[in-house]
């Protein structure tokens, strides 16, 4: 019983972080229909950057974290401006593969600057485990889930009330109409990339403060694709619902199936979910079914 509760709470908490990273994906997809496959590498490079700021440059938290956010903003702007902007209105194949190229490049940058490949961020959250009923849960998970939820709240308020947020939603709806209303579509695109990078950076810091920085972070980014797929590509609510589901499946499955099947099943569960969702309900729980015309 204690085990079950523990897996459940950890699963939901980890799932919240996945959902946060997935949100960054949904943002870009909604506004510009670009599938960002470099998500994992964005998570990776911003975690390493945080490591560089906090551990290697020995900056205090209140300088290091804003610098990470600034770096993410810069990164998002650069990627949009120099790789996606020249490819506007290109076939979807080009748009997908260019993000693959970006991811590959970023991976190279990471190995170039931080060749050690494994590192630990300093502990950001208090260490004492929390007792919830019979379960013992590390406090970090609760913090991570809380921060993700908070960010999700802020972002949804932004999209609801802020002028830029409304412009971004409008762009997602109809690019031509938005252009006719004198909303600069290109700056909406770069805004969405900036948001996605910032969100991925925060998610990355949360994940790597718990599990350390490894190349597994790329896989974390890929796992959040299963969140997007399950939730539906263009739905923010979908992300927030599907995130905890994926986290739960991963942790419960990892906890109970590992003795039966073997180690490592935990890492593969999100990918199995992807295949199942693809065959059963390809547009996800909340996604919009596309009806095509010739």
């Amino acid at each position: 019983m204690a085990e079950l509760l523990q897996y459940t709470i950890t699963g939901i908490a980890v799932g919240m972080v996945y959902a946060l990273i997935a949100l960054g994906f949904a943002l870009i997809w909604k506004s510009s229909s670009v599938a960002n496959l470099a998500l994992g590498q964005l998570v990776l490079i911003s975690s390493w950057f945080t490591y560089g700021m906090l551990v290697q440059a020995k900056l205090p938290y209140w300088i290091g974290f804003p610098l990470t956010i600034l770096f993410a903003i810069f990164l998002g702007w650069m990627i949009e401006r120099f790789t996606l902007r020249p490819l506007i209105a290109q076939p979807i194949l080009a748009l997908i593969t260019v993000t693959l190229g970006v991811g590959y490049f970023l991976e190279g940058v990471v190995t170039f600057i931080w060749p050690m490949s494994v590192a630990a961020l300093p502990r950001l959250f208090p260490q004492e485990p929390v007792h919830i009923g019979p379960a013992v849960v590390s406090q970090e998970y609760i913090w991570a889930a809380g921060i993700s939820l908070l960010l999700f709240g802020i972002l949804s308020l932004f999209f609801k009330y802020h002028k830029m947020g409304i412009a971004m939603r409008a762009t997602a709806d109809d690019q031509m109409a938005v252009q006719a209303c004198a909303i600069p579509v290109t700056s909406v695109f770069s805004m969405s990339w900036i948001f996605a990078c910032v969100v991925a950076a925060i998610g990355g810091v949360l994940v790597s403060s718990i599990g350390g920085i490894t190349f597994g972070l790329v896989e974390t980014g890929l796992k959040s694709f299963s969140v997007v797929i399950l939730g539906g590509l263009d739905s923010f609510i979908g992300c927030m619902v599907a995130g905890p589901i994926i986290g739960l499946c991963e942790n419960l499955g990892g906890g109970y199936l590992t003795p039966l099947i073997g180690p490592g099943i935990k890492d593969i569960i999100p990918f199995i979910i992807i295949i199942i969702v693809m065959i059963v309900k390809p547009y996800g729980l909340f996604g919009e079914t596309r009806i095509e015309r010739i």
Partner: protein
Amino acid sequence: MDLPCGTRNYDYARDMAVLRTKTHWALFIGLLVIVFAAPLYLGNYWLGVCNLIGITIITITGLNILTGYCGQLSIGHAGFMAVGAYTTAILTNKLGFPFLAGLICSGFSAGLIGLIFGLPSVRVKGFYLAITTIAAQFIIIWVINHWSLTGGFVGISVPPASIGGFVFKTEASQFYLIMVITAICILFAKNLARSRVGRAFIAVRDNDLAAEVMGINLLYYKLLAFFIGCFLAGIAGALLAHWTGFLNAENFTLTDSILYIGMVIIGGLGTTIGPILGAALIRLLQQGIMYISPVLESAFPAIPAGFTSGIAPMVFGLVIILFLILEPRGLARRWTLFRAAYRLWPFSY
């Protein structure tokens, strides 16, 4: 098709011929001689590079049929290669199959696995399919690492290829084996693209809905594309297995899959010459980086330690991005332009 002045087609067979003029024939035979005489002037190391290029060309040809002709993106081709490689490893090592039987079986097993992961392609496309094939990559590698039959993390050894008592032990003999199979695969791809199947693939790529309305069975042709693409990947995987003699899941990572996609794009999607150019360019670039990075490192001690391992992904990522932006039709288009310029020279109008 642009032909030199005075070349006319008197019958259908001549119209469809790949080699049209005497110059074509002369160049083709010259190329064959240069390629097949390679063991005479290349050392073992460069023969090895050529073998790797040949194997890569087979994979890329398969991926080109799937992605370039049929428009179905696959980011799991290294995984499908792994299926083929491990099939032949298990069949020849543990069950004592002959090499050729193992080769064919690995093609079929990779094709079947490709069919399973290609099933979603009937309902979804674009990004959804990309994600499915990434998932395929991870699931395949996980199974390989955790199944006792495949040797797990330790790996599995593979006997060298042999046909009818002749064992392909030396690098040169393997070179001939790989080049012959590569040539067969290229010829197959070239002819497939000109047949009804190839035209159906192109129709599906350009607009699958319109293709369906015109009477093309989407289910059949999309799955056929997956089968053929993965079949060739399986053949390439099997050749890789027999060539290296030892298999490990490290040979088939997601990074390799991405690199394969990059090669198809750099070479030129939907062309026969593209995979050859793309595979050769990237593999030679790899050799160049491997050669030049220690030199640079010793010349400039100030370079950080990660230079050697980090420079390759950076260069490849950059090459993929630049090709997509500047020359989305790849090297194949440059080749066509060069041929046209050569034919018209010196009167380019």
